[in-house]
């Protein structure tokens, strides 16, 4: 059974339907990357999964339970955590407070203040510093650490490399690969939105390409080429026009 199942999901911004009938299934331990141009609906999809954007239609089933109507804090308590675009730290609070506030999710697991600091040692000397005073890379580490503190079963990562130096991005992805216990039976499931296709191919098991709120292509990362994804990315190729991807197998839009 899939850990996270999305059925005919729709989400709107006023009159605009940003997510149009998306259906996806995500397995335990899988790393799924959502790619697509700006305005494709990736961020809205993640925010809707996390519960900070309302579901207009469809269902989100998490571990066999329909969580579509649950507020965001209940989904965090169930094990869905979002690292939002732009990090969204609490800038006046210290790094330690930013991390500890995530204990509100009240989930037991391997992540606590000590293990997060072991994973992000650069934060140790900054524990008492206001989060708003940190560098971009350090802030991203806090944002990921804060999400990990909720001991999530599914980690939703929205453009974690945005605005970071290449070195900081490398650091974040190195940490992610190590932290998530990739390949192990109990590894955290990741859904990530990333603009950097090269990096996406490195970390993802499966790639889902979105265009104008719909899934236009989906396939295993090792079976797709960058050119194919780029063609879907910019709408030069559509599912109807054919292609080597599998838009209807594990991902579809209605």
């Amino acid at each position, binding site marked *: 059974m899939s850990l996270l199942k999305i059925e005919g999901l729709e989400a709107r911004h006023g009159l605009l339907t940003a997510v149009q009938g998306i259906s996806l299934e995500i397995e335990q331990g899988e790393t799924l990357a959502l790619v697509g141009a700006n305005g494709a609906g990736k961020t809205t999809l993640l925010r809707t999964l*996390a*519960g*900070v954007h309302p579901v207009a239609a469809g269902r989100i089933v998490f571990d066999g339970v329909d969580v579509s109507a649950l*507020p*965001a*804090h209940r989904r*965090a*308590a169930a094990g869905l*955590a*979002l690292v*939002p675009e732009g990090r*969204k730290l*609490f*800038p*006046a*609070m210290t790094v330690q*407070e930013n991390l*500890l*506030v*995530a*204990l*509100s*999710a*009240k*989930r037991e697991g391997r992540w606590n203040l000590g293990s997060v600091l072991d994973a992000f040692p650069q934060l140790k000397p900054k524990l008492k510093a206001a989060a708003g005073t940190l560098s971009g890379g350090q802030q991203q580490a806090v944002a990921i650490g*804060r*999400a990990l*503190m*909720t001991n999530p079963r599914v980690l939703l990562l929205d453009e974690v490399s945005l605005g970071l*130096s290449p070195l900081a991005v490398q650091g974040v992805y190195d940490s992610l690969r190590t932290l998530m216990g990739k390949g192990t039976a109990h590894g955290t499931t990741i859904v990530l939105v990333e603009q950097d296709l090269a990096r996406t191919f490195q970390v993802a098991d499966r790639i889902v390409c979105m265009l104008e709120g719909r899934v236009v292509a989906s396939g295993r990362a090792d079976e797709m080429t960058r050119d194919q994804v780029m063609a879907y990315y910019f709408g030069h190729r559509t599912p109807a026009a054919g292609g080597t991807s599998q838009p209807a197998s594990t991902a579809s839009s209605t």
Partner: protein
Amino acid sequence: MIWLNQLVQGLMLGGYYALLACGLSFMFGVMGIINLAHGSLAVLAAYMLFVLAERFEVHPLLGLVAVIPVMALIGWVLHRLVLERSARAGALIPLLSTFGLASVLDNSMFQAFGADTRSLAPYIDSLSYDGWTLPGGIIVGQLAVLTLVVAIALLGGLHLMLNHTALGRRIRAAAHDPDTAQLVGVDARSVYAASTAIAMTTVAIAGAFLAMRATFDPYTGPYQLIFAFEAVIIGGRSLWGTLMGGIVLGVAQSIGAQVHPQGFLIAGHVVFLAVLLARVYAADTLRRWVRSVRSRFSSQFGNRATTP
């Protein structure tokens, strides 16, 4: 010596204003809501204590043990039934709804208790008039000192709670960004309701001191709201700023009263307006200055001014 006396009395009065403004500042800081029923709720607490004192001979300070939980419950209900719903409709609606609530409360209290002025002073024995004589012959009232001490303790307690407890972290997170706070498991709705309950706890204490140090009637609330509002504006949104705001207001009124018999209220209002204007114009001038320095800097150094 007269001026020093006025300064000391103003400081004591400032303690009361800080106590009164504490809940208003807390709600504004956490939820961005200006509760126009704040003064009326303080008077409601005062009436509760009055009933306990008059009918059951309960000392007002002891009566707080019963009134504080009731006011906290009222705060919780107030948030769930009024503030939460009205805040969804924009920033103006909570102002209107709390204004309406104040009217309902004032007139309900008038209906229940009539227009007679009351006071809790007769129920606190000599505390209402006893004082200590300081060097130089300055006399400070024991009740005034107690008020200041309670104000500092309350603000200090709130400060500690906000900075050193899990609830405090949740409150600060929800105050900054409720959506993101929810993402990490904070139930912003409950946090706001708890914050309103905490604010009403401080309102109950403020109501007790209002009624012990002076008289009150069903329409005293709006006047108390003005003083609380002025203290918050003068001091800014922080809790310690509220204490300073209360003291500045108290000292201004006290010195104003010394300058002219009618100067008590006017001096307080003048200081409030001066601080408000200074905040608006000084902030604007500072912004313009920063902009001009930045543009001068970038025109001199061109692209080199931008850091990678």
